[in-house]
């Protein structure tokens, strides 16, 4: 499974209990659409840590939603293009000239930790220097 963009490689992928949706395994009515393990994996991708109670509750609630939205499976959508956006706009350009910018000090003042005009964070890779 490809990691979610922006959440690259921070969580080990747990063993999958099902095949990909839309793949070979087809669920019948009333069967679980998302397992607890998948729910935990999704939470990790989204950088959320859930308690056991939250995981139990969210698994049931997500399963119920996925069961509801499965109604669209009955539709023949093959010939239709996807809509990303309601407006027919693409590649809108503006002149490449400098304009107003935000005040750097004002922006940095909002950071939880800043130093020398930079955002300060804990170690990203390995040990602190």
């Amino acid at each position, binding site marked *: *499974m*490809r990691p*979610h963009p*922006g*959440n690259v490689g*921070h969580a080990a992928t747990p063993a999958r209990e099902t095949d*990909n*949706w*839309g*793949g070979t395994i087809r669920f019948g009515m009333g069967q679980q659409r*998302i397992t607890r393990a*998948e*729910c935990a994996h*999704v*939470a990790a*991708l*989204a*950088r*959320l*840590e*859930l308690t056991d109670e*939250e995981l139990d509750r*969210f698994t049931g*609630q*997500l399963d*119920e*939603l*996925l069961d*509801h*939205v499965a*109604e*669209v*499976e009955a*539709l023949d*959508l093959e010939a*239709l*293009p*996807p*809509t*990303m*956006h*309601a*407006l027919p*706009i693409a590649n*809108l350009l*503006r002149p490449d000239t400098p304009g107003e910018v*935000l*005040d750097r000090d*004002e*922006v940095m003042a*909002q*950071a*939880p*930790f800043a130093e020398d005009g930079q*955002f300060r*964070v*804990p*170690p*990203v890779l390995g040990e602190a220097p």
Partner: protein
Amino acid sequence: MTAVEIAAAVRSGQRSARSVVDEHLDVIAGGDADIHAFNLVAAAQARARADEIDGAVAAGSDPGPLAGVPVALKDNLCTRGLATTCSSRILEGWAPPYDATVVEQLHNAGAVVVGKTNMDEFAMGSSTENSAFGPTRNPRDTSRVPGGSSGGSAAAVAAGFAPVALGSDTGGSIRQPAALCGVVGVKPTYGLVSRYGLVAFASSLDQIGPFTTTVADAAAVLDVIGGPDARDSTSISDSQPPVSDTLADGVDGLRVGVLAELSGNGIAPDVAARLQAAVGALESAGARVAEASVPAAVYGLSAYYLIAPAEASSNLARYDGVRYGLRVDGSSTPDMNTATRSAGFGDEVKRRIMIGTYALSAGYYDAYYGKAQKVRTLIINDFASVWEQFDLLVSPTSPTTAFSLGERTADPMAMYMSDVCTVPVNLTGQAAMSVPYGVGDDGLPVGVQIMAPALGEPVMFRAAAVLEASL
């Protein structure tokens, strides 16, 4: 006094902006403890701004079409130097370094910001119970919810705290609370109002719009906040004619469709009866009314609850404890990100991020997100055929009147169903508004939704004015 009346009185020097603002701040001080419409009341700033406007009038200049009008802003609209929380712990302590375009426009029109209103966290919810700062109560009956997610804005107008409030509508978050609180609420055509400075939930659906007590006030506000903005690449590049100019043109000869898929199944009988009364009023005013069908509209909720969370999961990735708001320490940056997000987001936001992450993840993208985008096309196509036969469509705004606090919080699906009448229009980008039209069996307000094709605001407002006058 309505916004239009206040502006006229202030511009002509009959009333001072300061007296108008003081009066509203007094009403807030006396009533908001019971309602909790506001996350923050900016009393000192509002008084100072009112004095500025009075100074301008005294000096012989015109402060603008909303001179001295108190305005409440949903707390996801950026206000420079004034805390903007989205009713979330994760934005704790954040004061934006810039104003949203709509905030600048209101300022330039002479309006006075009186505070920031409570909302469902990051606009995810239909009752304003998903706020980190506690729920807002419906001013018509404080045991009921005001609707959501812009419940604080709707309640502020309904309670008389401000004649105008702004909200945002991603799946009904202006129209549904407007209906439940008995005020006018407008979701403009996508792209008509700049989204610059609106904290993003689902960018292809979000749109800012006004709450007011009268249709004319909503038109006056929309005329101020509509228009192109170079800072929002999705704003429509042409200026539109003012809605206020044609408000009194009536509906004689207009073709109005009653949208069958949103007006039958699941609609409470007392709500359906009010829709019938509204249809009768439009017919009496000369509109030609018939049943209209948008078969794919019934799939709106399913498409919406995949597309909106998918976009949200991407938009809310920015809350990582690095640049603003809350940070909860961790031994590494990923640990810090996770600790911050786990502590900072509430349950509903976590659920939606997870649904969206799931729907976008490898192996599920085509089955869920890809399919939802095609359903979106199907709904757009179905509406396009209906617009060949009709100028406007009507339906209830909400299937029921305001429900009780706590009634749907344990059951997210039941809460999501509250949006069934409003989500299709967000998917298509069309214009829609809710107009109060009497009360249901419980004595609580019922809203009628009027829908128009993209940029059909002038015609939509004409019908709204007819409904308002028929009550």
